[in-house]
């Protein structure tokens, strides 16, 4: 691999590359230690060397055989997938309407949606809990999912992206005889795939790593999500770091897959929407 420049001639670039490389190391170190710890035996756990002296898969075997990790993983996966699908659909639908339709109170609705971004989750947790309790949603998938089915951020993001879709395309589709929903679905939505991909990544990651609300709304181990489940390895007196790290290592796989898969669509989307007007 070449550096693409002659370091002797450009000292500024050396400085920049060094800084970037350092940043990279800082980012990768926790990840490397997570993998490393997951391969350490109980005895070696507090020995902070990066490469274990006697690497072992016993943690992984315990995780899959003895703990309820597989169940938590499945819970997380179902919840994150449904939440993501829901956010993509409803946020883009709301964003499209707010962007392309003129109606009384449009601005107020938009501001109301935006203002939800300013309310921290911690403040909402108690009302959510009371609501879930009254509606019988405690300790259910729906209870875990419902606060994240539509997000103000997503509506805002999609509305901004729909601005790039020319109104004439929508008019042309109307003349072509499409219903309003099909115009959204077949004409407008395919033109904002980069935004959809970005939103999918944010939402999936957000749901996959959500901790506070799933912890509060679930009360049986079989309904835990991965973060809540992993937290249960941390007891009052001891913390099973090896199990937490092993679970976390496995839990990063779906997020990586989602990112790698959708990154391709982001690039493809950029090419697609690169049509000069």
């Amino acid at each position, binding site marked *: 691999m070449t550096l693409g420049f002659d370091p002797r001639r450009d000292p500024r670039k050396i400085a920049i590359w060094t800084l970037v490389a350092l940043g990279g190391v800082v980012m990768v170190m926790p990840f490397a230690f997570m993998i490393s710890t997951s391969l350490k035996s109980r005895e070696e756990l507090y020995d902070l060397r990066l490469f274990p002296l006697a690497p072992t898969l016993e943690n992984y075997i315990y995780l899959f055989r003895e703990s309820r990790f597989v169940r938590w993983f499945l819970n997380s996966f179902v919840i994150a997938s449904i939440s993501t699908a829901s956010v993509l659909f409803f946020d883009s639908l709301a964003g499209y309407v707010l962007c392309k339709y003129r109606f009384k109170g449009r601005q107020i609705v938009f501001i109301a949606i935006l203002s939800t971004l300013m309310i921290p989750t911690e403040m909402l947790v108690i009302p959510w809990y009371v609501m879930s309790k009254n509606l019988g949603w405690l300790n259910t998938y729906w209870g875990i999912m419902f606060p994240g089915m539509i997000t103000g951020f997503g509506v805002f993001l999609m509305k901004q992206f729909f601005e790039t879709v020319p109104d*004439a395309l929508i*008019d042309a589709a*109307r003349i072509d005889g499409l219903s309003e929903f099909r115009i959204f679905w077949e004409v407008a939505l*395919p033109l904002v795939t980069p935004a959809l991909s970005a939103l999918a990544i944010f939402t999936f990651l957000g749901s996959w790593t959500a901790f506070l609300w799933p912890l509060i709304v679930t009360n049986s181990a079989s309904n835990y999500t991965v973060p809540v489940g992993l937290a249960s390895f941390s007891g009052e007196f001891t913390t099973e770091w090896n199990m937490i790290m092993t679970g976390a290592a496995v839990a990063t796989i779906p997020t990586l897959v989602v990112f790698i898969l959708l990154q391709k669509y982001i690039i493809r989307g950029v090419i697609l929407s690169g*049509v*000069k007007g």
Partner: protein
Amino acid sequence: MASVTLSGVVKRFDKTTAVHGIDLDIADGEFVVLVGPSGCGKSTTLRMIAGLEDLTSGDIRIGERIVNRLEPKDRNIAMVFQNYAIYPHMTVHKNIAFGLRMAKLAKADEERRVREAAAVLGLTGLLERRPSQLSGGQRQRVAIGRAMVRNPAVFLFDEPLSNLDAQLRAQMRLEIKKLHQGLATTVIYVTHDQVEAMTLADRIVVMRDGRIEQIGTPTEVYRQPATMFVARFIGSPSMNMIPGTTGQGAVELDGLGRIEAPGSAEVRRPIFLGVRPDDLRVAAGGAGALTLEARINVIEPLGPDTLVYADAGGRELVAKADGRAALRRGEAVKLVADADALHVFDAGTEARLS
């Protein structure tokens, strides 16, 4: 094919009125161009005909039907937009066939129509390309193709050539004209370019501030503009306007003398005398109904003709001279126009008097 009739069509957006009750009859197969400066309501009128804007009041008929409340798809029209509005995520073929698919046409019929339109428009080799791989002219052809396959009763064009460069615009203009001659479908075409209006139209509708200023053939609009606005808007360079007073068989031009004007009103009133640069000749000698002494300020050779900007009594006038004439800046010349080239407008109402 169908006629289009607008009666008392009004469009208000909140507090502003974009179209102030216009009446217009367009015959079956006619090519009508709505022309005017931006904001004159021409595009809004077209969009109301298309069904993309609701009417505030009035009626629009296409054929025998009142279409005020019909969806665009049910009006039997097709529209071509300024920025093409072809779907970037579909191939040329899909773009052209899209409307037909919505109309649930038989597959074979759909394919035949797409192929025919592609052949007419020279798109046959490009059917599998995406819009991003096409030039501006090709994209506009796809947009026209999409309109053509629908076999509409009325074609609506909203400034379709504005995004193209001058050469391509001239070429596409010709193609649109040929297309109309071939299909003989009613066309309503919106533009702010008076050259497009003159070259394409059977009849021109000149609009200003949401009202129709004049409806006429290109020759009528050019030769007998109904108002000063039309006189200035149609023709390039714009018509020269010289202020003066009329009355008792003559026109007194401010600072430029007096000319005979038989039939002018008895009552004296302020007027503008209009004369097109094409009708104002630069002559060494000779005389016409209007003869003005002038001094050349600027010379613009165009090839066959030369535009001459000359100072006559402190007023700059534009005249046309033969391209071969040897003219110099600062030279004293006579500007001459015949009686039938003079237009008299009321200075108050701006309406044509003669």
